[in-house]
């Protein structure tokens, strides 16, 4: 929450002026009953028409002043709250983009998106309401009370009893029901999830004949929610009648005491009316205050969720200016890695080294640790133990820019962004010329389909590149990495959507690159890694074998199994 105040403090002037003008408006409101009292007690009693006109003129004046003050206040409140939210959003966005993957996984991307969007919007609304009303309502309540004291001390004592009692009841019921509403919301989420499960899993449910038990499960949750709903409902249903009775009892008391005071000549009839009006005004404000507090309460919770992101300490830090790479080599020394919160290690005690310009294939089954290894090389995560050296230095010794400059990554998921093909290719190097782009496209076997697209490089991709096929997306992500012309090229299962012939052509043109980058090629296909200078076989996070295709095929059982599962003919033939 302190972050909200931090960014609000950039709008100090506005956030002070908004409530001030609101108070001014409230002050004008408070004068109204007094003026009406004077009309009754002085104007009517003495049949003084000019006086009455004067006082009514005053009422008009108060109305005009009121709306002027109010509009000014709304303007400042809107400026401060929207401005605060804008800065908060930018700061949170920048923070998210700077977080390590371990932290992003922990906070979960979908939750981060919610925090950046709806949570911050809620904070904005809450802040706006608070600036406008948080001071106004209590001010009117206390102002009315003071005005009452000025009119008649004895009658005002009624206020002194009624107001706290009323507040106590209203806030008491609210305090009890807020956590209950949260529970209701939670069970509604549950019901939503069950409904959605029943739809997405309809075939499985029907195949396993679970219709009845699914209905029973749903019914149980639903009835529990209804019971909870009715219980919370009964609480809030009581609020209105109770406050209504309390207010009117106060009014009865007021008339009774008022009557006695007037009878003794201590008060005039108009003043009784004024007190009556003040009481009515206070009630309206108390009700507003109650709903305001719910809004603020919700905004506060959202603010905390956003604050949690901003307060997250980045566990991956880079030295400001660090070592410079000596060459394009890679050395992995006894590296183990466990994902934060995972039960067991994803990589255990792996060692290998790659000479500059060499091509290394990494092969292994689902969950064998191939992608994790790539994530360690790029320092998306830090190793749990062991050393990882790029260009002869530990990855931790490089500044962020120097580390990033060394490698180009083609991630497993072909992630493209909304924008032209050109925008997407120039992700790493905004300076690249069109000739550079076409060259990369040719190597990535993408030149043909790009030039056949309307506009070529100017072809607009939709969000996530939805208007391309899987293979086309994959080739563009390869081209994007090539445009970077980095010393080390990391391909994480990036030919899975290509047919065998295209994939072979791709590898041939990669091999002809000059200068030749050190290449790490991760794949599930034996055909993709067969020609590599060395092949690492990963199994269950461990290095199960290392060598050339011929060596491994001869004496590595894991590699043999993988190979023969993909080339069954040869086993029989030879």
């Amino acid at each position, binding site marked *: 929450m302190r972050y909200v105040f931090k960014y609000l403090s950039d709008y100090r002037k506005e956030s002070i002026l908004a409530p001030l003008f609101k108070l001014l408006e409230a002050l004008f409101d408070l004068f109204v009953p007094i003026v009406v009292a004077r*009309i009754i007690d002085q104007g*009517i009693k003495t049949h003084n*028409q000019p006086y009455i006109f004067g006082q*009514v003129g005053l*009422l008009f004046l108060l109305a005009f002043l*009121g*709306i002027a003050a109010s509009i000014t206040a*709304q303007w400042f409140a*809107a*400026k401060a709250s929207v401005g605060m939210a804008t800065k908060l959003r930018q700061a949170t966005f920048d923070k*998210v*983009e700077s977080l390590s993957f371990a932290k992003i996984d922990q906070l979960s991307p979908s939750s981060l*998106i919610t925090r950046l969007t709806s949570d911050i*919007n809620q904070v904005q609304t809450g802040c706006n309401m608070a600036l406008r009303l948080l001071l106004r309502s209590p001010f009117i309540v206390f102002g009315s009370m003071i005005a009452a004291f000025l009119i008649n001390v004895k009658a005002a004592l009624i206020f002194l009893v009624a107001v706290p009692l009323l507040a106590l009841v209203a806030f008491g019921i609210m305090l009890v029901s807020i956590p209950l509403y949260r529970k209701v919301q939670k069970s509604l989420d549950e019901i939503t*999830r069950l*409904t959605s*499960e029943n*739809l997405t*899993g309809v*075939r*499985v*449910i*029907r195949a*396993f*004949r679970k219709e009845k038990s699914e209905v029973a499960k749903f019914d149980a949750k*639903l009835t529990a929610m*209804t019971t909870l*709903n*009715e219980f919370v*409902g009964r609480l809030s*249903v009581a609020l*209105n*009648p109770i406050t*209504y*009775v309390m207010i009117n*009892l106060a009014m009865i008391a007021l*008339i009774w005491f008022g009557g*006695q005071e007037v*009878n*003794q*000549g201590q008060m005039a009839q108009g003043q009784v*009316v004024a007190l009556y009006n003040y009481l*009515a005004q206070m009630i309206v404000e108390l009700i507003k205050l109650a709903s305001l507090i719910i809004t603020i309460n919700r905004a506060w919770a959202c603010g905390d969720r956003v604050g949690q992101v901003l307060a997250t300490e980045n566990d991956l830090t880079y030295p400001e200016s660090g070592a410079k790479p000596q060459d394009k080599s890679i050395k992995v020394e006894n590296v183990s890695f466990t994902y934060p*919160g995972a039960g067991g290690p994803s990589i255990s005690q792996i060692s290998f080294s790659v000479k500059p310009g060499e091509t290394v294939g990494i092969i292994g*089954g*689902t*969950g064998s640790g191939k992608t994790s290894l790539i994530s360690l090389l790029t320092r998306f995560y830090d190793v749990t133990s062991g050393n990882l050296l790029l260009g002869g230095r530990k990855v931790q010794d490089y500044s962020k*820019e120097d580390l*990033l400059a060394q*490698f180009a*990554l083609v991630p497993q998921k072909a*992630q493209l*962004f*909304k924008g032209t093909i050109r925008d997407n290719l120039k992700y*790493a190097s905004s300076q690249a010329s069109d000739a550079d782009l076409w060259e990369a496209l040719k190597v990535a076997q993408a030149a043909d389909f790009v030039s056949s697209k309307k506009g070529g490089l100017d072809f607009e991709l939709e969000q996530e590149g939805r208007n391309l096929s899987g293979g086309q997306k994959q080739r563009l992500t390869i081209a994007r990495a090539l445009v970077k012309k980095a010393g080390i090229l990391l391909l994480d299962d990036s030919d899975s959507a290509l047919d*065998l*012939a295209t994939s072979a052509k791709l590898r041939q043109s990669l091999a002809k690159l000059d200068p030749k980058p050190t290449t790490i090629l991760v794949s599930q296909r034996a*055909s993709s890694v067969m020609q590599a200078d060395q092949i690492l076989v990963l199994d269950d996070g461990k290095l199960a074998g290392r060598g050339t295709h011929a060596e491994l095929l001869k004496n590595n059982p894991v590699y043999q199994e*993988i190979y023969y*599962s993909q080339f069954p003919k040869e086993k029989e033939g030879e």
Partner: protein
Amino acid sequence: MANKKKQQSNAQSWQAIGKVLKFISRYRLLLFFSILLAGVSVLLQLYVPIVFGNAIDQIVGPGRVDFGKITGYLGQIAVLIALSAAASWVMGLINNKLIYQTIQDIRQRAIRQIQVLPLSYLDSHSSGDIVSRIIADTDQLSDGLLLGFSQLFTGGVTIFATLVFMFSKSVLITLLVILLTPLSFVVAHFIAGHSYQMFRLQSQTRGVQTALIEEMVGGVKVVKAFGYEGRASKRFAKINEQLQEYSQKATFFSSLTNPATRFINSLIYALVALAGALAIISGRLTVGGLSALLNYANQYMKPFNDISSVVTELQNAAACASRVFELIEQEPEIDAVSLTGKEEKPGLTLGAGTVRLDHVDFSYTPDKPLIRDFYLTAKKGMRIALVGPTGCGKTTTINLLMRFYDAQDGDILIDDQSIYSVNRSSLREKFGMVLQDTWLEEGTVRDNIAFGKEDATDEEIIEAAKEAHSWDFIKRLSQGLDTELLADSLSAGQKQLLCITRVMLVKPPMLILDEATSSIDTRTEMLIQKAFDKLMEGRTSFVVAHRLSTIVNSDLILVMKDGQIIERGQHEDLLAKKGFYYKLYNSQFAKLA
């Protein structure tokens, strides 16, 4: 034209409201009392200020206070407020019950409906849409409709009663108020028109921004790997500044509504004070009367504003109602599985497990025939493979076997019993099914494996997991079998292994595997294949596969194209034919030059 359309949709919304009323007809007594009590409490609440006014009139000046009368009035008030509070309390309780019971009734009906709807309906409607009908629309409907009615009614009563009470005090002042009221509407309308434009721009810009956030957060790996953070931040800032401008204007304009209506109200208040004061001087009104009139003038606007918002809310609720009823009134499939346990048709008695498809025709849409004249006899224990390009009808054949869809012509017989003459449940009981789409429910790993056999022991579960080669990863999960599966905690391959384990546990008489190992690496696939081979021994099975390596040992391979079987036979024969299968096979295993 547009007008006609509008009329039509109006008629539809009335129809929908009628349906809701019918649906809740068993609560009609409650509804009646709710409305009655609403009327009572409003009338009482409106009458109270008059009595207060009368009481104030008895307080004239020093020594001129009639305490006897005041006591009488105050006693009256006490009774009135007690009655009014009681009425509104009971009304609240009734509404509470009415709303939540209706919601529950609708949702219970809906979840049952989902179980019996034809898959053609569910496949052609997005699940998000159906969920929002059952959750959001149902809430809106009951809230909006029930409260809407009661507010509409009380609003009407309030306005009517207020006018009567005000007329009884002063005709002139009442007319003055009635004449000035439209002013407030005009102002509110004017402001709403202007802020609407800004709100639209605001939500458009928010949409653009959310899209960017989704891309930059979802693709954060690429953003970081390419050092794009700085440019991402700049792009974000640009949209953010635009949003700030629209948002500020939208917030400001919309927040003018309240002050503006309050201003109009203040003007009316002042005029009533003036007219009232002058009327008192000329003896046509009392001070208490003025107090009551001022009080009414203050709250007179509220029901008007309420009613205009209630009308929008009612329209909205009616739209929701028609969406909800469209779902729950949908015709269920024929021979739908009974949820009460009493099936109309007899069960399927399994003999040897011979499956015969007898000249089956089927299409999803009448104008596009898909499967034509499909015939096949699968004898006991045979392993049938279905191969062919995407959209050739492989999965459709599975849909027909499981009776997810019904054939339009021809018959499917299992041990000489037509599957259309037995109940669906007993048919599905005989098949174990693994689909490419790996659906798991939210729950523990154990719950998911035991999905088809709730009383399975841990030993049985672990045994099945070992057979399906899922035990390796399960035992490494932080809580083993008790690990809660959340949305994305498993990889696609691991999910598929769990789906296979689920079937391994049940050991069904016949098997259907539709791309059951598509997300699993080839080596694990081979291991699983062995387990399947063991499981399928002596069982009739149908396998759809993309990777041909998994089906080369089948007893019969059906090569499908455009809904028809173009080649059938065993692997070696089909290869020898050098036809479509030969081409398909070689495109997957081509040796590289």
